[in-house]
């Protein structure tokens, strides 16, 4: 029987197999941030256990650091400074690779890792952060863990884990420039549920994926966890190899040929078995925006919010009812034209250069609607610099967006900055949970293009409408 790409990478990392279906899996890379990495390193240190392979461990500051220009260790979030200082001192003590504030490598972990060549095809990679699955875009077997599992990996470079099932998601059809990876993944989650994958490894494939750029693939895999997956993964191709060449932590010149030879073999067998195969016809995917408080509460902007009668399952119906109340929306109404208070472009989902370019193409020579607070937070210091080199910052600023330093920023409210009470925010982030972005904040997840278009209109809007306005 053939094996999936995921199974092949897994099998290559089995140190020991146990009778109870569990494997002891070797972990190649560990990435940390100040929010959850600080406690993992601290807790290990308290037990007098050292990091086994410091060179395989990386850390950055992204979660609770401010993104306001001129920032330092002081944070608007009370006690945020303690997390930053703790990670810094642990990183120095353990001699791990550390991207401190105000270094060119700093940024959101899942943005930094690909751009520095830390996540590579065929590697196993963990981070105490749920969006670690983003890195499957490079053919890395990457998944999020808790702090305790992270401690085990830091101490032993292994984890005991049962191999999950594999699901294949084929995305085929015509690609058009109106449909982004974000729209596709929201379509997937809205159709199959926020736990549709139920802990499986999801492999994305199909002609649409083949044609996608690396950054769009990162967006797609990023939201695998919102689909209930352990991870998302895409077969690495020439685009990935090209993307990685010359990156700081990628294989050096004398190793690259050998590495690429190995990477080219990383593909699922034709007769590989999946527990489920999902086929998505990209022609059916429109502009997707969430209306509720779970990523599965998403609709095509041409459609209406479902009525409660359309939902059979009682618990789901009850969740939808609560979500509508929270969001200040009515069943059966449209999202189009809904007035917004704020627009946010950022997060590990959609803050890379290509995201900023798309948003800028819509914002160029336009102004954000009166009364809309608009913020752009580039995903990394490198993204920020690259964007500034192209003049994107000027487009954002002259449109009326704030142009920030990199970090996770207002993707979530940690006690520092947040959106106002009950404000309606269109956001390129990944979670529309209750109170996630601020007290009673009403989050609508969407692509960067949709966020930019809505910021200009002052209401939830189609990106294509803005393009027609040009």
């Amino acid at each position, binding site marked *: 029987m053939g094996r999936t790409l995921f199974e092949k990478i897994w099998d290559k*990392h089995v*140190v*020991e197999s146990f009778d*109870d279906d*569990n494997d*002891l899996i*070797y972990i*190649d890379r560990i990435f940390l941030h100040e*929010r959850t990495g*600080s*406690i993992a390193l*601290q*807790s290990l240190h308290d037990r007098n256990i050292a990091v086994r392979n410091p060179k*395989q461990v990386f850390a950055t500051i992204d979660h609770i650091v401010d993104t306001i220009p001129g920032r330092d260790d002081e944070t608007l*979030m*009370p*006690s945020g400074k*303690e997390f930053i200082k*703790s990670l810094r001192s642990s990183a120095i003590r353990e001699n791990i690779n550390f991207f401190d504030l105000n270094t060119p490598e700093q940024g959101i972990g899942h943005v930094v890792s690909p751009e520095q060549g830390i996540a*590579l095809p*065929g590697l196993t990679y963990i981070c105490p*952060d*749920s969006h670690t699955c983003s890195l499957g875009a490079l053919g890395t077997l990457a998944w999020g*863990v*808790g*702090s*305790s*599992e992270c401690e*085990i990996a830091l*101490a*032993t*470079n292994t984890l*005991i884990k*049962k191999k*999950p099932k594999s699901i294949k998601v084929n995305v085929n059809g015509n690609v058009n420039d109106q449909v982004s990876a974000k729209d596709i993944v929201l379509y997937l989650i809205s159709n199959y549920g*926020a*736990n549709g994958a139920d*802990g499986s490894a999801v492999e994305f494939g199909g002609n649409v994926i083949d044609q996608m750029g690396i950054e769009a693939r990162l967006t797609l895999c990023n939201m695998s*966890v919102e689909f*209930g997956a*352990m991870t998302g993964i895409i077969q690495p191709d020439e685009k990935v190899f090209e993307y990685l060449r010359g990156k700081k932590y*990628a*294989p*050096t010149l004398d*190793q*690259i040929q*050998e590495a690429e030879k190995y990477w080219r073999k990383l593909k699922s067998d034709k007769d590989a078995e999946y527990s489920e195969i999902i086929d998505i016809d990209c022609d059916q995917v429109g502009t997707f925006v969430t209306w509720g408080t*779970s990523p*599965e509460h998403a609709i095509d902007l041409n459609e209406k919010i479902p009525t409660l009668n359309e939902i059979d399952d009682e*618990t789901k119906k*009850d*969740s939808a009812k609560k979500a509508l109340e929270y969001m200040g929306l009515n069943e059966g109404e449209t999202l189009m034209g809904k007035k917004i208070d704020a627009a946010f472009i950022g997060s590990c989902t959609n803050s890379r250069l290509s995201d900023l370019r798309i948003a800028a193409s819509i914002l160029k020579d336009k102004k954000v609607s009166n009364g809309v607070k608009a913020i752009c937070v580039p995903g990394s210091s490198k993204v920020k610099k690259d964007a500034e080199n192209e003049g994107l910052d000027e487009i954002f600023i002259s449109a009326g967006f704030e142009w920030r330093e990199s970090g996770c920023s207002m993707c979530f*409210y*940690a*006690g520092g900055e947040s959106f106002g009470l009950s404000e309606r925010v269109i956001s390129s982030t990944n*979670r529309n*949970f*209750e109170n*996630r972005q601020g*007290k009673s904040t009403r989050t609508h997840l969407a692509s960067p293009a949709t966020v930019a278009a809505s910021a200009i209109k002052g209401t939830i809007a189609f990106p294509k409408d803005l393009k027609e306005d040009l």
Partner: protein
Amino acid sequence: MKPINAISGIAAPLLRNNVDTDAIIPSREIKKISKLGLADGLFAEWRYSSVQNRIPDQNFILNKDPFQKSVILLTGENFGCGSSREHAVWALQEWGIKAIIGKSFGSIFYNNCIRNGLLAITLEEKIISGLIKNVEENPSDNHIFIDLIKCSIQCCDKEIFFDIHEKDRSLLIEGLDEIEKVLIYKNNIDSFEADHKKIRPWL
């Protein structure tokens, strides 16, 4: 981690789907680099009518009598989805929750539970609904008894059996530290690592 054989007590129904870890412990309630001091922030946005002044919302299940003394949560699908923050588990435990019975769990949250000795049991929704019905008839007396040796749940003279992965069950029963467990294989890890890096020197 303390070994667990059985858990019994008051069970609180929180039959919602997709209860995320942001709801279990909001990010702003994580104020220190510590696994302690989190119970106060558990379900903060639902539990308090004023989070700032810590005024309990009497409509929230865990504020109602007798559910303030709950040790078990009965919930829906995908409980603990979202952020990987292990603080969600630490907060639940510190508040007093020892077991959660749900239709399904977020996979990172589930792993975090097992590694901290919080029992997470997956059951079909109709069985959970049945348990909720039994509990609601008389919450103070209709306790749920979970036997991890037999893998059974007893409530109101009924006994239900559940499945749990043997490794998870033994971790909970033995209360073993997983680092020590893994380090039994240190020699195997060393030799694997040496070969692995020899074949793939770019690692």
